[in-house]
């Protein structure tokens, strides 16, 4: 009986969350003069729907574990240094999920090398309470698809 109750509560809590995503459900605004909860800049940094994320391959899993270890154990100690959005570790996770471990690691190396010049070119966006330079994975693999 308690299990049934727990399952019902769980279903009640998770069902609406699945139907609603940050992109399609308001309130939203594109103007600073008419602020509501979800501004355009917030949408760019809003967490994506987990269902739309690429499923990692088996080969990618150990790398993702290592990155998760870095993010949860090492990251909090050395956090605040990265000026980019997403942060390099987050970028690495996204690129490995999207392209697999080999290309993902190469793209991570590229990201760590191009931070310096990218800060003169990338748009500045507000993430939480600080400004960061926007440089998502799509900014560095767009040419794979456009040619």
């Amino acid at each position, binding site marked *: 009986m308690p299990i049934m109750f727990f399952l019902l509560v769980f279903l009640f809590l998770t069902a609406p969350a699945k139907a609603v995503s940050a992109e399609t459900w308001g*309130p*939203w*605004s594109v103007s600073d*003069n008419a602020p509501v909860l979800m501004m355009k800049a917030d949408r760019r940094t809003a967490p994506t729907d987990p269902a739309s994320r690429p499923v990692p391959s088996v080969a990618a899993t150990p790398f993702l574990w290592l990155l998760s270890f870095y993010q949860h154990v090492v990251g909090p100690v050395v956090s605040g240094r990265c000026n980019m959005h997403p942060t390099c570790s987050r970028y690495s996770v996204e690129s490995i999920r999207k392209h697999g471990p080999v290309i993902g690691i*190469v793209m991570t*190396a*590229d990201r760590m090398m*191009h931070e*310096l010049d990218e800060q003169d070119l990338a748009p500045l966006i507000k993430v939480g309470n600080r400004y960061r330079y926007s440089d998502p994975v799509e900014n*560095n693999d767009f040419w794979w698809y456009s040619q």
Partner: protein
Amino acid sequence: MRNRFVLLLFLMLFCGRAVVAEEIPAQKMISFADSLFEKGDYYRAITEYERVIFFYPDHPLALTARFRIAHCYLKGDRLDQAIDRFRALSMELPQEEVGRRAYFMLGEAYYQKREYSRAADIFETYIETYPGDERIDAARIKIGWSHLRQGQWRQAAEEFQKLPPDSPLHAPAEGLAEGSEKYPGIPTKSPALAGGLSAVLPGAGQLYINRPGDAVVSFLLNGAFIWATVEAFHHDNNVTGGILLFFESGWYLGNIYNAVNGANKYNRRTEQQFLDGLQDKYRVSYLYDGHGGSMVAFTMRF
């Protein structure tokens, strides 16, 4: 005491009736919604337009409200919702002015969504379906822009040149046709050459694509790891050498990817700057005229 209670009850009922008696006409409702639209508060404007539709579903302004809801989504960067709304309106009322406008804006929504091929198809269909419409010339310019955004500068120039000399948009179209001819002259960097240079000497490709910071980082990182790897093997520390080689292979491939990626980003940026410059110089936009209608306007920067 009883009399006081009856008096109070009577007063409350009377006041209640006075409040309920006031009804807001559709025109006032839509004016309020328009004021929110003008302020850029599209989310709240949609609610107010929906209110007009709910309270006055058969009023002529209900159609205006539906069009403006779609326009709010377009201006609010909710392009999928805008497309759905414009499409529904244009399919429902293809022979009405609001339906024609909605179809034009459907093309505009696809253009803003960067689905240029689809946008061009819609504007082509618009020209075929409504040959005498006042927005034909604007549709041609949009087709030209859709081609230009896809790099098809010859087709774009041809499309811009189709505008008749008596058209109010003829002058900007001529300028756009001339501008399109300059498309092949946009400065570009070869991704293959950048990658090749970096393969030979880490950092060289980055210098070629004008990214000196990346070049220094790439050269130092690769140099340090290659030197450490060689030293490790030289001193028979094969395990350390292997680990360093593993890391260095990542840096080395990352360096090549960095050069190729940088060249592609450079090309995208110069193309974007060229097109944005052209668009700023001969801007054709779709505006409200302040009296409930809409119009095509153009501005030229000298």
